[in-house]
């Protein structure tokens, strides 16, 4: 991960990307780019293709068009380990505790410099439930554990699918603070929202997906 790369090349550039399911267009074609230190807000109603867009960007769905990371065409090798996706599903086992789940993920991804499982769980306010099985946590607490993953793992592009869902007012402020901190370190984030939550930075760029 090289956070001090030249700012002229956007971290993520998408050119005419689109996705169609059974010949039915889901979104696009879209053109956009995300620079380091920038947040892009993806807005759209339910079913407008926000989640699909993030999955195409993450390389889980074969979309049309061209995606570039740091100027090089996206491939499994250039993308993997640099993209962190937080979706509706946490990607964690309900039978394991937050500590065990995060320890496994650091095994897969490595650890961000200076972060430890305990420190990131404390940062999102889960320190009291660190050894409880995930299934005994509330929906909002689980979301916070998901946010702790973003702080723990290296990766410069965050793809956040509805990160505000299930969170209380403090949780929403926490998400905004995490994104701001990540961008200040030279990362970038794509955040989807159906528009009900006020985003921290009113200057952030938007793309709107039509249903």
């Amino acid at each position: 991960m090289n956070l001090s790369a030249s700012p002229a090349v956007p971290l993520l550039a998408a050119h005419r990307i689109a996705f169609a399911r059974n010949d039915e267009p889901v979104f696009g074609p879209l053109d956009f780019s995300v620079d380091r230190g920038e947040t892009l807000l993806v807005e759209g109603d339910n079913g407008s293709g926000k989640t699909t867009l993030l999955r195409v960007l993450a390389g889980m769905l074969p979309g049309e068009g061209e995606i570039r990371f740091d100027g090089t065409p996206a491939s499994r090798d250039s993308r993997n380990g640099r993209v962190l996706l937080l979706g509706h599903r946490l990607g964690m086992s309900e039978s394991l505790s937050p500590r065990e789940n995060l320890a496994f993920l650091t095994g897969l991804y490595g650890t961000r410099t200076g972060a430890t499982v305990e420190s990131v769980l404390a940062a999102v306010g889960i320190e009291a439930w660190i050894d409880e099985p995930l299934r005994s946590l509330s929906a909002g607490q689980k979301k916070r554990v998901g946010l702790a993953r973003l702080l723990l793992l290296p990766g410069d592009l965050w793809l956040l699918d509805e990160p505000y869902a299930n969170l209380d007012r403090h949780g929403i402020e926490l998400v905004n603070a995490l994104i701001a901190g990540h961008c200040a370190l030279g990362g970038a984030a794509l955040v989807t929202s159906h528009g009900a939550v006020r985003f921290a930075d009113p200057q952030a760029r938007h793309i709107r997906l039509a249903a």
Partner: protein
Amino acid sequence: MIAAARSVAEQKPVAREAQARMAGAWRACGALLRRDFLLAWRRRGELFLPLLYAVIVTALFPFALGPDPQLLGRIAGGVLLVIVVLAMLPALESMFRHDLEDGTLEQWLLAPQPLALLALTRVIAHWLTTVLPLLIVMPLLGALLDLPADVLPVLLLALLLATPLLALLGAVLSALTAGARGSGILLALMLLPLAVPVVIFAAGAVAAAQSGMPYLAPLSWLAAALVLAIVLAPLACAAALRIAVEA
């Protein structure tokens, strides 16, 4: 000379990166094994079921067929093979399903690790937690059916080769059917034709040992198939998992 020195200097970062990748892959495999063992321990009640099934079915055979030691001894090898294969079947179905449902597979896909290696590690963890206990109680089951003592080592050897092979084949099918509803029946139907040759070779080795003939040939075939499956099955598994996550 200078050119050679330069090429060495150019190779070094590449070699270092490859080394770092290897270390990362090992760390990922270790983390996955630890996680799977932990999960198996949390769900140890479920793990006990195949074991209980094998013991109960084996214990019923002498009651159903009558306590004729000669008859039981003659069929014991084949019966135990089939019981192990059937006891393995229900667990195969869920090898990847939990991870697909809770989104863990998405994290596998985005991780900077080879997916096939993670799939192979999962199969190893699965074999160690669900099949190895069956092999450990095999001497007891053999005694229940009056299996001749000199055949037991051959049966164990055949199972040591046949069960990882079946687990690898089952993993590919499990990955293919992970997203489907009613995948249990589908998996059983698809695994049956693949399991037949494995059972034939394993049973052939046991039968040969029982009649005092050389039994190395069928075992070698099993070993060859196992080597092939260790190389190819994880790749097929990885491709199937990508499709499962896409859906």
